[in-house]
């Protein structure tokens, strides 16, 4: 076996996801420069996907598999439909007003007076602020604001908003994830995952209640998020 054959074996282990982090990083670096290994990776990835699909048979009742309870679907769809129903009841505003208000609110938050910022705001930011409550919270004089180097946490009532600017796109296969620390808790709890828009701006309303939050943090996590931070937080804000 040649040294390069050994590298190809490592590519297979990498595709399967069984390499320790350090070796995986070596393979990733090698893939950047070796077309033969890239081709091998492209060839093997669908086989790895197929291994995942083999588990589908475990949940196929026609072949005697263990199936998820029908109540599971009912639980999930009840939450989904409840959310869509509440959205339909939300008051509607002129799109021009909403967009302008959203741009204004976020510009205030990030402390930038440069009007060019509004051109950087992406559609996700505007969509995130498409609630009158959000706009009122962000612009209200009684909202509590906690600044950090690249953004701010804003609280009003029991609502929590996180805005960040000058963010880089997360590495491939990763997202940013917010974390909250409840008062008296010793460990961070997972909150939302998000990604910045093209202008490097992110704006999210966290689902947690502001009344019980002692700190907010942000870290880079694998797609889908994590239950515990797996990387050092890029921001930590004490409330």
């Amino acid at each position, binding site marked *: 076996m040649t040294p390069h054959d*050994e590298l190809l*074996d490592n*590519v*297979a*282990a990498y*595709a*399967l*996801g*069984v*390499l*320790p*982090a350090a070796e*995986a990083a070596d393979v*990733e670096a090698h893939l950047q420069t070796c077309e033969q290994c890239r081709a091998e*990776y*492209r*060839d*093997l*990835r*669908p*086989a*790895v*996907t*197929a*291994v*995942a*699909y*083999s*588990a*589908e*048979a*475990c*949940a*196929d009742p026609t*072949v005697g*598999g*263990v199936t*998820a309870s029908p109540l*599971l679907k009912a*639980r*999930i*769809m009840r*939450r*989904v*439909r409840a*959310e*869509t129903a509440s959205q339909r009841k939300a008051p509607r505003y002129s799109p021009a007003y909403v967009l302008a208000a959203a741009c204004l609110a976020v510009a205030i938050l990030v402390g930038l007076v440069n009007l060019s910022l509004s051109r950087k705001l992406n559609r*996700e930011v505007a969509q995130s602020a498409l609630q009158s409550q959000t706009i009122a919270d962000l612009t209200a004089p009684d909202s509590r604001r906690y600044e950090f180097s690249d953004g701010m946490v804003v609280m009003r009532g029991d609502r929590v908003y996180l805005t960040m600017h000058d963010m880089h796109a997360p590495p*491939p*296969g990763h*997202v940013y994830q917010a974390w909250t620390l409840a008062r008296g808790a010793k460990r961070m709890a997972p909150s939302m*995952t998000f990604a910045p828009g093209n202008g490097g701006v992110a704006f999210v309303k966290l689902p947690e209640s502001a009344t019980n939050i002692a700190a907010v943090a942000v870290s880079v996590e*694998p*797609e*889908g998020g*994590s*239950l*515990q931070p*797996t*990387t050092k937080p890029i921001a930590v804000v004490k409330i």
Partner: protein
Amino acid sequence: MERVRARDADAFEVLYDQYHRLVYGVAFRVLSDATAAEDVTQAVFLRIWSDPALFRDGNFGAWVARIARNRAYDILRSRALHPQSELPETLPIEDAIEETVLANINGERVRLALEQLPPEQREPIELGFFGGITHDQIARTTGQPLGTVKTRIRTGLRRLRAALQETVTV
């Protein structure tokens, strides 16, 4: 997914019907626990609903299976069943590689193809994918040298790929 991004609950239900067995099956194979597998399934689908932008492009089935496996691994780690695990926190990059699995792929057909592999190739592949362990842990589990394990993983994946050539393509 476009309709799901537009907050179409009916489209989301279709997505659930199409992929819940894959998500639940992966979680169940990793965790061997029906209740925990349902928890993973619920978490994965509600995460997709709340943040559909997480899925960018490529094959949705491959992506959602990876998310399910990641979630299940998180639970394994939180249970401290693998306190010595050296698994990377990240999964292999795929963004530069468009992976397309034809629509007629199905779990039973893949399962049969896996069963056709020699046991010495199938075992490390399944241990690696569903067991949440690294290649050297696979070597210790199977009693084989590490180099042999890696070669068998590669040979097995290539055979699987060839066996599924009619249903899997890039």
